[in-house]
């Protein structure tokens, strides 16, 4: 298929934040209806659907009255939606389906109709991590960073610099949860969650949803939208437990996935105008900037501190405010993709001028799964 695959719809739930009147399934279906409206596509034309295992795309498809002939239930945490895009590109190019809907909905704060999560005590993580008083992401996802600091010369305060840079973007975004200006001292005055991380270096926990609609470039010509081209994709993985990470200073889910996405797009870091890096915690953008090759090893902290990722900087990063200030339902990747689509369509809340290319880097689990999208304006 010469024209490739494009994103023609990208939308969130009407509101994000605390939504106790929405079940998990309602968040999926509201986001899906908004994305369908955004694309202008006839819902009867949707013949492919993807989402994580709970409530699952079969349930979401039935609720929406869809009858798919292609389905992807890849569930690798917050990066899953980027993985779904990659898999949908392959399916659309192979002619297995013609229009794919990818949905996310998560009652992360209110837990309405939300699945319970606890590791099986017989699993590797249940036997060899859970016994040590780990509280989930706050004491596991953060664990590699002390090593990262020592081996790369990065300072603890660089985490605060990330939070401050992203708050600058959030302050321009009316939908962001946190918009008040923030200083490094404010961040450092917030309570410890797990040293070396303060509260304001950890993400929000919210309710919300988002959805994407993909089709072929040929099919998109009938639609009155500015399609966003999927130029390249990649995925990469490490183990289910944070203690299994081979190198605590570099994540294969960023490095390998990013390299694959750049290779398939025929582009490199210097060709990218805008970047989204999954930020459940403030160290992820530092790992991402280095693992993706935007800066050299040990340079990410100073790069952020000097303002290069902030409004007006040379490499705008996490321009919706990110998981730290915008929203974070638990599996944040969908919102990162939607922000990239909006930037490429020129309709973002904190719009960066002349964005022609955007890279979205997802994370799933805690440095367990990665997927990368390189997207381009029409």
């Amino acid at each position, binding site marked *: 298929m010469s024209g490739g695959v494009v994103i023609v719809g990208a939308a969130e739930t009407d509101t994000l934040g605390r939504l106790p009147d929405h079940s998990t399934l309602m968040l999926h279906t509201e986001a899906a209806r908004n994305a369908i409206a955004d694309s202008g596509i006839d819902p009867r034309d949707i013949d492919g659907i993807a989402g994580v295992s709970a409530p699952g795309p079969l349930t979401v498809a039935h609720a929406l009255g869809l009858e798919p002939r292609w389905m992807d239930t890849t569930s690798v945490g917050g990066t899953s939606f980027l993985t779904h895009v990659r898999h949908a590109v392959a399916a659309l190019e192979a002619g297995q389906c013609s229009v794919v809907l990818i949905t996310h909905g998560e009652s992360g704060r209110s837990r309405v109709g939300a699945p319970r999560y606890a590791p099986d005590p017989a699993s590797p993580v249940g*036997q060899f991590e859970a*016994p*040590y*008083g780990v509280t989930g992401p706050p004491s596991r996802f953060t*664990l590699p960073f002390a*090593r990262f600091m020592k081996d790369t010369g990065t300072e603890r305060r660089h985490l605060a610099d990330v939070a401050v840079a992203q708050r600058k973007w959030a302050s321009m975004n009316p939908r962001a949860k946190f918009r008040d200006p923030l200083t490094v001292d404010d961040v450092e005055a917030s309570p410890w*969650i797990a*040293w*070396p991380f303060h509260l304001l270096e950890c993400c929000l926990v919210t309710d919300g949803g988002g959805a994407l609609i993909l089709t072929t470039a040929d099919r998109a010509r009938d639609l009155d939208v500015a399609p966003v081209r999927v130029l390249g994709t990649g995925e990469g993985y490490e183990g289910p437990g944070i203690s299994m990470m081979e190198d605590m200073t570099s994540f294969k889910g960023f490095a390998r996935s990013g390299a694959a996405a750049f290779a398939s797009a025929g582009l490199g870091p210097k060709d990218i105008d805008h970047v989204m890096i999954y930020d459940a915690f403030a160290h992820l953008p530092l790992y991402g900037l280095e693992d993706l090759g935007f800066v050299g090893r040990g340079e990410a902290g100073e790069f952020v501190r000097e303002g290069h990722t902030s409004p007006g900087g040379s490499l705008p990063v996490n321009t919706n405010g990110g998981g730290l200030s915008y929203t974070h339902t638990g599996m944040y990747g969908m919102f990162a993709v939607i922000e990239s689509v909006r930037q490429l369509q020129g309709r973002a809340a904190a719009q960066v001028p002349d964005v022609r290319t955007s890279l979205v880097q997802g994370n799933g689990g805690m440095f367990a799964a990665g997927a990368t999208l390189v997207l381009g304006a029409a």
Partner: protein
Amino acid sequence: MTSTISTARTTDATGTRSRRPVPTPTPDTEFYWTEAAAGRLVVRRCLDCDVAYFYPRDFCPGCLSTNVDWMPCSGRATLHTFVIEHRPGPGYEDDVPYVVAVVDLEEGPRMMTNIVGVDPDPDSLELDMPLTVVFERRGEIAVPMFEPATGAAR
């Protein structure tokens, strides 16, 4: 290998099991937990690769050989990375802040653990500092933990 089994903190007056999470051993890990309950730390080793690995599997993750055995550990390790947890996990409510860490065993593999017998303060914890294994009893199970090698008296 010498070791200490600590029971006071996690076994209540009636001797029933701790509120801290207790792993469920599987056929490929049962010997690890049996040895731990006796105060011994063991890891798997591939006899073809001559490489020790963690967590236990009955084949080598490097070459898939089943020519593997169990290797007694010296109990010596160094601190690879850590956090100081200020929000307690299950059973740790009375112990915040506490140290969650990954250590490098002298035999090569890395494992998650807690660092005990040390102030939970970044000034007391230096990466690569030497550590010694201790065990914390939780009912039938004993969980390996580590303390600073220089402060081994317990």
